[in-house]
């Protein structure tokens, strides 16, 4: 009976370790800022339904964003963004697939703030490009908070800004990511 109990505890222990290899969220936040320097016109949007999953065993990380989920302060900007720039009907999702290159230096079992370097492929507007970004991983209360900020050149993804508004939309958009990930259990 005693040995059965020990085996059971060992099995449960192993299961819970395995289950917590992956962390995920479906409520991650990404914001885009394409405001031109010193311009009074604020071109900013946010999306709060970002899906993100990280495998702490391998350092693999993925993001998936529905383009129609970006919210703007003005309706006209949102319409132009979806219809003319990112063509959301044709390319409904943006996906990033990559890995944390300094994965070995992050202790996922210990609370703390870790610097992370991420390399991978970003697909947006039907175009895929390799990108690199630096960010932070905060490990606290059993959750991982991933934050990063990087620039994205619109032309790299064949997002064309009409000449008429070229002086109002930045050619490099600033992307800010803020995701709080929970352990993936029972999946």
């Amino acid at each position, binding site marked *: 009976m005693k040995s059965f109990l020990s085996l059971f505890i060992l099995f449960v222990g192993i299961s819970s370790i395995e289950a917590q290899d992956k962390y995920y*969220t479906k409520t991650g936040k990404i914001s885009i800022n394409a405001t031109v320097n010193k311009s009074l016109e604020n071109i900013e949007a946010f999306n709060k339904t970002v899906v993100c999953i990280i495998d702490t065993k391998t350092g693999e990380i993925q993001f998936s964003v529905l383009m129609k*989920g970006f919210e703007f302060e003005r309706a006209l900007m949102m319409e132009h963004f979806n219809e003319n720039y990112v063509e959301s009907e044709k390319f409904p*999702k943006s996906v990033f697939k990559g890995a944390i290159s300094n994965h070995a230096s992050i202790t996922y079992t210990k609370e703390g703030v870790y610097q992370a370097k991420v390399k991978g492929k970003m697909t947006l507007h039907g175009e895929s490009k390799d990108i690199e970004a630096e960010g932070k991983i905060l490990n606290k209360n059993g959750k991982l908070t991933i934050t990063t900020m990087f620039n994205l050149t619109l032309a790299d993804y064949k997002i064309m800004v009409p000449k008429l508004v070229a002086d109002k939309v930045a050619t490099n958009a600033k992307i800010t990511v803020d995701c709080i990930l929970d352990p993936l259990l029972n999946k």
Partner: protein
Amino acid sequence: MKKRTIVYSIITVIIIITVLTLYAWKEYNRKPIDLRNTKANYTLYTKILLNDFSLSDSTSNAKYMSQIIELTGSEYSIDSSNKSAYTIVLSEKDFLISIRCSLDSTEKMLGILLNSGKEITIKGIYTGYNADDLGLGADIIINKCILINK
């Protein structure tokens, strides 16, 4: 006669420019749709929407894209993992898909909902479908959701 024609022409041009400027200004400052004052394109029970997507996610995605949907259901949970972005997850037995309703930042009725335990009605804009690509389950995404007090 000629002087009068010139005056009328100038007045007409000024009126046209003023109207166009006002229209452009109004259009530029137009706020995104206010769901509290807009009628839904579809009024459904969660089971109907889930059934539609189970039959064909691509057909349903095209049908509901950017449409305002008013949904009523009794099986739900609240995803509060991100305190600034509460999500109500509607589900039904026998369906592997969930409906994730991301609440609008102006929505203040969540407290009432948490205590009610009754059938709820939510209105929001259909934003897209997340297939189970990442092993996290498939989801119908509805944004800018508000709770309807019935």
